[in-house]
């Protein structure tokens, strides 16, 4: 690569300018408040983690990790998600605290994706992890909280799709018999290649009943009534457990009054391989990308030697702001222009105005190139100029 121009930044990196910052901050504050009200305690973890711990546990594709070496030659990664770091903390620094733990975060994540625009390599995510609770109430709480946070952020017309990895696995395994063959089919699902899935199913030596069972999986999306259809496709213990989870979850969500935003989608399979049970994704109608996601990951914590059931969600702030579509106005500011003879007076005035809650810029006249241009940027301007005392002109 040739030497970059001085204004350039690495692919996928973005600047946050004041207006965008303001907007993002408002959204973040509103959601943070809601999450706080539900009793989740915010934590922070470092931007750099070991590749061998968080890097391998995180399930983000290896080629999407930013890697570097520390002075001892250990491979480090810029954290690609927050679930693995929080699992690490829950299993180590917080190991003496009783489960369940309710933790929240908002922090930038890093994923190398150097293809084109619209796909930042650094983005801010806000979310929660509920660690050490395996109940449907926990799954429901996390989904309801995600809905509440999105609502508080100002997103009205959102939808959440809910699936269950356990059900998909049980059905595939029940029909095709081996983990390997189930894997091939599962892969078509997470690649969203339904044509390939159908073609592959037809190429397998299956009875027409079994073939139909697999093809019916693609139709299992809609309201609560789909659980009945799902039951008819497979009855073994694993599947029954998964469907029982979903029945209970639906009840919980009705209790929270959020079921209007919920659709079942039993073929929702995400590439995040640590998910073990209920999975979900949130969508806003104005944006082509899912803006939040989450699910149950009951096996991740054992990598950090404190086995525990857990569930959580993450909301992409950058995508949420895009989905909301409006930019906040920058707050109004007052300017006090002074000449050095009256500096003291100006400082006092600024102090009082700031005390009353105004945003005040205190500016020495000598440091200004163009007074008219400067004044235009402010809602009001006070002048403390010239030698004589008193009579601050105000416009």
């Amino acid at each position: 690569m040739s030497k970059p121009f001085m204004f350039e930044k690495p692919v996928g990196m973005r600047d946050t300018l004041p207006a965008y910052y303001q907007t993002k901050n408002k959204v973040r504050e509103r959601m943070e408040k809601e999450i706080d009200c539900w009793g989740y305690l915010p934590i922070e973890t470092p931007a750099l983690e070991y590749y061998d711990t968080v890097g391998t546990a995180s399930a983000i594709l290896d080629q999407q990790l930013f890697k570097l070496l520390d002075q001892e030659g250990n491979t480090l990664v810029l954290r690609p998600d927050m679930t693995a770091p929080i699992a690490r903390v829950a299993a180590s620094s917080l190991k003496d605290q009783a489960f369940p733990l309710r933790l929240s975060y908002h922090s930038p994540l890093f994923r190398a994706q150097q293809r084109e625009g619209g796909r930042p390599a650094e983005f801010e995510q806000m979310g929660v992890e509920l660690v050490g609770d395996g109940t449907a109430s926990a799954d429901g709480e996390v989904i309801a909280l995600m809905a509440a946070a999105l609502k508080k952020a100002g997103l009205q017309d959102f939808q959440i799709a809910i699936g269950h990895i356990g059900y998909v696995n049980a059905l595939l395994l029940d029909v095709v018999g081996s983990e390997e063959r189930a894997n091939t089919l599962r892969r078509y699902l997470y690649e969203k290649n339904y044509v390939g899935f159908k073609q592959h199913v037809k190429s397998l030596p299956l009875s027409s009943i079994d073939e139909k069972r697999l093809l019916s999986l693609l139709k299992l999306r809609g309201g609560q009534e789909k659980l009945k259809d799902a039951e008819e496709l497979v009855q073994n213990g694993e599947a029954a457990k998964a469907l029982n989870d979903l029945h209970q979850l639906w009840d919980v969500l009705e209790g929270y009054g959020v079921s209007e935003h919920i659709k079942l989608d039993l073929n929702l399979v995400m590439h995040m391989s640590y998910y073990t049970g209920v999975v979900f994704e949130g969508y806003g109608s104005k944006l082509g990308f899912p803006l939040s996601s989450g699910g149950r990951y009951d096996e991740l914590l054992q990598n950090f030697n404190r086995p525990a059931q857990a569930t959580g969600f993450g909301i992409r702030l950058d995508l949420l702001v895009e989905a909301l579509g409006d930019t906040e106005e920058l707050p109004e500011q007052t300017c006090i222009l002074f000449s050095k003879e009256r500096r003291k007076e100006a400082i006092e005035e600024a102090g009082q105005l700031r005390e009353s809650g105004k945003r005040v810029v205190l500016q020495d006249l000598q440091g200004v190139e163009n007074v008219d241009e400067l004044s235009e940027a402010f809602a009001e301007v006070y002048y403390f100029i010239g030698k004589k005392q008193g009579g601050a002109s105000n416009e």
Partner: protein
Amino acid sequence: MSEPLTVAMPKGRIFEEAAELLREADFPLPPEFDDSRKLIVDAPEADLRFILAKPMDVPTYVEHGVADLGVAGKDTMIEEERDVYEVLDLNISECYLAVAGLPGYEKTDINPKVASKYPNLATQYFKEQGEQVEIIKLNGSIELAPLVGLADRIVDIVSTGRTLRENGLVELETIVPITSRLIVNPVSYRVKDARIDDLVERLARVVEEDEA
């Protein structure tokens, strides 16, 4: 009614064929779209809007959600690897991907080169074959490459084989059959599920009838 469903399509023959399928599925499209240079064509009666794009770009429009649906060749889908649902094989514009070269081509050890419009797909294919080649990306008239010595083989789509023959090339290996697919944006698939499911089912019936 809310906003129309937006469908991204390649201009020309595929658009015609896909529109015909939609008519057969009882979507009230006008009998003919005036062959203007318009890039956005509305069909208000059917509550559809068409975006006419380059074939390679269709999955991009759909992935970013500016089109809810799209019609894209499997070749483009493999090459572009976009995050979209591939829901239906429309069985139109059938062709296949093949490796072609000059007659009597023999594998060479001296830095074999392959020219293609599909660099990712070609790389993937030769990797699977365990053959190390260098890929040269071209944007069209791929048949030129072996004729002028830019590459010794090409990877391209073949429908009748006429272009290959007329340029004195022969097919060496078949890679994969290609048809046009109906693709869907992942958010639209969920948020506009009722309308999209209806469209997919109606089209599926037409396509499967044709098959039978």
